[in-house]
Structures are given as structure tokens and as C-alpha cells.
């Protein structure tokens, strides 16, 4: 693979996707110190919100240690060069949250929908574009449909005003050929002024390989998280990815040693559990299940005595999509009843 001379924008997820792994309990001090250290290392874009995006505060997903507004107000003023992004899932957050984020100084809004439901994002993408924000359409669980379907949905989002489209491997299910096909079709068919991005999870151990395939196929933005702090087995570990890209001659603007230090000195020490491809995280990737279901399934296992792996496989079989965390306890209860455990 020859990527020599390409330029890529890296986008850190550790303070948003990482919120899943931290049960949304990252402190304001941790947010500020990690974001500042990444800024110092040259990370161009950093996402900060509840793991389920603006307005994610809920019993369903978890009450965060602080509100989105508190996190954003704490982090944004401390940035020297890095820009801050916020995620918004229509159906969970609203345009009111979006305006709040804009007022807090957020410059990039990423509006996320399931990969077949882009038409719920018209209001939000339209509003962000109208406010002249960097507006990203984020198609989740992109492994579930064909490249043609992803393209069709991407075109809707571009029509609403998005200037960048992501194919998002929320389940960490994809293998490199699939990434190549999906990113390649988006790059070939979307207007050249529309950027294409890829967001991976490491559940099958493919996050680095998939992200490289995405760059080769034309993606110019790649998500990852420093030390891999994200849902499931985490996102593409950015310090590793930076080293790989440096060897391959891809320009990121990120200082390798500094980002390695952020990973080792700041992020790894605050992990509640090792972020790795353990059997449950692997099951997410293998069964094609939304990565943030991991800790919920493990909690249901403890509470009802049904193996997290069995729960996750069944969730995959039923075609659950992002945000259906409430299904996990419901399903565990039903399975426990069937087994005569309750």
C-alpha cells in the first residue's frame, strides 16, 4: 500500500467515545488536561460530549458527571489550535443542544443517524450548515447495508448541507475490503469538495488496517482515540496510527512522541478497565453489534446470570441499532425467565 505524500486530518474520540468506556464519568479536570495535552501535541480536532452525543444524559445511556455545556465551556477556551467537535444523534438531542454547542464555541457538528435513516437529520444538518459550522453527516452501523445504500443516504445529508460524510463502523465489524468498497464509492460519487471520513472500532483487531484502507480509498478524515479509549475494544488507537502513518509518509501534523505520552501518562491511568479485544468486545465485532452495548451487557450478566456474549449475539440477530441500550436489560430479563433463573 502506498500512501506516501497524503495528508489526513485526525479526529480524537477519547473524550466522547471514551465516555462510554468511562460510564460518562470523566471529570472536568481530566477533560481539560487531556484536551490541552492533545492540543499541544498537534491534534487538530477533538470531540467532547456525552458518549451518546449532545443530550445523551439519561437513565438509558447513563447520567454523566457533568453536562455537555459544562464540559464544552471548560475545554473550548483552553484550546490554542485544536478545534472542538460535538456529536448529535437526532431522536436523542435536538437543535436546541446544537445551538448551545455553537454558543460554547464548538466548531464542528457531527450529526449521526443509523445508516438507513439519514432523513431524520435534515433539521440538524441544515441548522449547523446555516450557522456556518463544519457540518458532518455520520452514518452509523455502516456494515449493515451495501455501499450503494450508504451513498444514497450520504447524498441526502449532502443535500441538507453537510460538507463531510462518514462511513462509521460502529460495531467494529468491517474488514478492509468492505471499507475500501464503501469509502471508495463515496469518494468516487460525492462532489470533490465534500470530504469523506472513516470511524472505526477495534473489536476485530482491524481498526488500524481499516483506517489505512479508508485513506487509500480517499478518506481525508480519520477518527481514533488516544490509547484507544472508546466503546467496545476502543477506537483506532491514535498514537499507534500516528506511528504507522509516519512510517508510511502520511502527513498528520501530530507529534508522535507527545501523543504517545498523552496515551501513556494521562489516558491509560484513568481507564476503569483495560480497553482490549476481550471475548465480549470480540463478540461485538463478530456479531455486528453497537460497541457501546458492551458494558450494559456485562452489567446484565452480573445482574441476571445470562452470559454477556449470549446477550450480544442475540442483539445482533435481532438487528438492533445504535441507541437501543434499553433492549439489553429487557432481553436479559426475557432470557433469564426462559431459563427459569427468575
Amino acid at each position, binding site marked *: 500500500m502506498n500512501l506516501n505524500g497524503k495528508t489526513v486530518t485526525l479526529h480524537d474520540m477519547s473524550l466522547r467515545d471514551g465516555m462510554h468506556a468511562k460510564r460518562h464519568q470523566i471529570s472536568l479536570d481530566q477533560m481539560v488536561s487531556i484536551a490541552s495535552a492533545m492540543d499541544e501535541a498537534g491534534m487538530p480536532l477533538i470531540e467532547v460530549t456525552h458518549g451518546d452525543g449532545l443530550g445523551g444524559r439519561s437513565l*438509558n445511556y447513563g447520567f454523566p458527571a457533568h453536562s455537555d455545556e459544562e464540559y464544552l465551556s471548560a475545554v473550548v477556551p483552553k484550546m490554542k489550535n485544536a478545534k472542538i467537535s460535538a456529536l448529535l444523534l437526532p*431522536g436523542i438531542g435536538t437543535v436546541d443542544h446544537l445551538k448551545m454547542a455553537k454558543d460554547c464555541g464548538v466548531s464542528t457538528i457531527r450529526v449521526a443517524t443509523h445508516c438507513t435513516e439519514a432523513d431524520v437529520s435534515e433539521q440538524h444538518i441544515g441548522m449547523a450548515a446555516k450557522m456556518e459550522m463544519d457540518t458532518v453527516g455520520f452514518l452509523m452501523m455502516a456494515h449493515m447495508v451495501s455501499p450503494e445504500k450508504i451513498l444514497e443516504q450520504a447524498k441526502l445529508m449532502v443535500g441538507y448541507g453537510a460538507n463531510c460524510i462518514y462511513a462509521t463502523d460502529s460495531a467494529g465489524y468491517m474488514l478492509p475490503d468492505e471499507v475500501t468498497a464503501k469509502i471508495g464509492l463515496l469518494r468516487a460519487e460525492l462532489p470533490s469538495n465534500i470530504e469523506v471520513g472513516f470511524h472505526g472500532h477495534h473489536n476485530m483487531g482491524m481498526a488500524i488496517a481499516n483506517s489505512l484502507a479508508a485513506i487509500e480509498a480517499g478518506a481525508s478524515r480519520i477518527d481514533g482515540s488516544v490509547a484507544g479509549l472508546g466503546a467496545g475494544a476502543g477506537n483506532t488507537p491514535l498514537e499507534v496510527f500516528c506511528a504507522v502513518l509516519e512510517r508510511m509518509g502520511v502527513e498528520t501534523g501530530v507529534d508522535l512522541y507527545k501523543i504517545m505520552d498523552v496515551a501513556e501518562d494521562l489516558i491509560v491511568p484513568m481507564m476503569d478497565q483495560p480497553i482490549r479485544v476481550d471475548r465480549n468486545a470480540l463478540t461485538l465485532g463478530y456479531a455486528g453489534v453497537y460497541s457501546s452495548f458492551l458494558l450494559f451487557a456485562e452489567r446484565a450478566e452480573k445482574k441476571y446470570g445470562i452470559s454477556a456474549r449470549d446477550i450480544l449475539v442475540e442483539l445482533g440477530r435481532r438487528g438492533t441499532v445504535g441507541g437501543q441500550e434499553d433492549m439489553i436489560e429487557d432481553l436479559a430479563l426475557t432470557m433469564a425467565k426462559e431459563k427459569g433463573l427468575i
Partner: protein
Amino acid sequence: MSKKLKAVIIGPGNIGTDLLMKMQRSEWIEPVWMVGIDPESEGLKRAEEMGIKTCATGVDGILSHVIEDDIRVAFDATSAYVHAENSRKLNELGVIMVDLTPAAVGPFCVPPVNLADHAKNLEMNVNMVTCGGQATIPMVAAVSRVQPVEYGEIIATVSSRSVGPGTRQNIDEFTRTTAGAVEKVGGAKEGKAIIIINPAEPPLMMRDTIHCLTESEPDQAAITESVHAMVKEVQKYVPGYTLVNGPIFDGNKVSCFMQVEGLGDFLPKYAGNLDIMTAAGLRTAEMFAEEAANGTITLPARG
């Protein structure tokens, strides 16, 4: 003289047609008119085949028939944007408006929780909240009538096929309106609503999760009894309303997991979310008719 109240349905789409089919079985409401804006629309043709009068020139086209046909109830299944005008014009002629749009001009109505009050007060415009609201607010109320609820949260998961373009273009209206009604009707101090659209095939049945945080330790026996009683109330007009799991207690958190299967009239059975709206709307009008027949309320006088 028939005790039935005569009705007009505005909006010949999926909701309007399903409502018409249910209304044809009603002992209290008689469908007379279906109103649309497109003479070629499938919905108007269907209504005509089902033997009711149709009008393709909007609400203005039937105003002159309201008195001569003795229309007493209107169901608005159009959009929030035109509802206020539709309601004003028909209210002026003494027609009670059941609003199935998210306009929320009138008070929210969730039949087993507050319909009786609205009927007694002869509210001339009642709003049916949202599908998610109809499916979940009875459960919030079932907890809050036992003890104070400081926070109520509902998650409605619906099949992609059952979510029309109107809801999609304004999904924020769903979350805002539902959250507001979780507070105002459900009785939670703070309300939150989440909607998830799932494209699985075959389409999944509507499912809903309700979480309440009670202010003090939940009275498990009383809440369980209240929840089961409320489920029975909803089943009177939506037989496929089922408590799948719960109530489950975890500290002060009370959780119920519901499934809503529709009757499969015009809309498929999986579209319990649409069915519960039409069933609740019809139930609402029926209660007004019952109260009028009992003499508890007096409908606006007509010469």
C-alpha cells in the same frame, strides 16, 4: 335519534384511513366526511369506496356542510403547520377537535390518565401528544399516582417503515412534545424522551421502555399493582399493549418494558405506534359522546 356523534377526518393518509376503519366499528362515533387536498389521492379514493363523503378542497370545503350534516367531532391527521387554522374554523362552528398532529394547541390527552377530565370540561381541542407518549405516559402516571416521580424517561423504538416523512423532518418535535407530556400528564417533575428508528426486516413491533426515578424508596407492591391496572386500562382500546418485563426496581429506579402490537386495520400489526394514536384518538371522541349521551356535558347548541 342516534346517540352517535358524526365526525369528519382531516387528512386521508395512513393515520386517517386507519382511523376511519376503526371508526366504522364504533358504537359512539359515525364517520361522515374525509377531507384532503388532492382529488387524486389514494386516501380519498379509499374513503369513497368505504362509503363516506369526500372533499378535496381542505377544511374550507366542508365548513358549509358542518351544520347540515350535524358534524360534532373532527380528527386532524394533517400536520402541525395547518392544525391551528383547521381547529379555529371548526371550533367556531361548535365542532370538538381531536388533534393527532404535534401542534399541541389544546391540552394533552392520554385517555386512561386525563381523558375523563377533558370530557367533563368539554375541552374543544385536545391533543393526542405523540405515539411514544400514548404508549408510555400511562406507565409514568401509574408510578406517579403512587408516589412522587422526580424524573421520568421514555425510550420509544419504532420500525423504520412506520415513521412517515412528517415525523422524520421534525423529529425534535417528537422528543420535545413527548418529554413535555411526560411531565404535564405523566406527573414526572422532569421528563426526557428518546426515539430510535430501527430498519430491521421483518419490521420490529413498537417497543417502549419507561424509567422513573421516585423521590423516595419505591413502594414495590403498590407500584406493581398500579402498573398492572394501568396496562388493563390501555388494553381496553389497544388490546396488543403488553408489559413484557417489569416493573423492575433498582434503588429508586422503576423500569417497565412494553410492546405495542397494533390491530392491523389499515396499518400493519407491527406499527403499534400508529395504531395506538388512532385508537387513543377514537377513544377520546367516544368518551365525549358517552358523556354527552349521559347528559354530563352539553354539546354546543345548534339551531
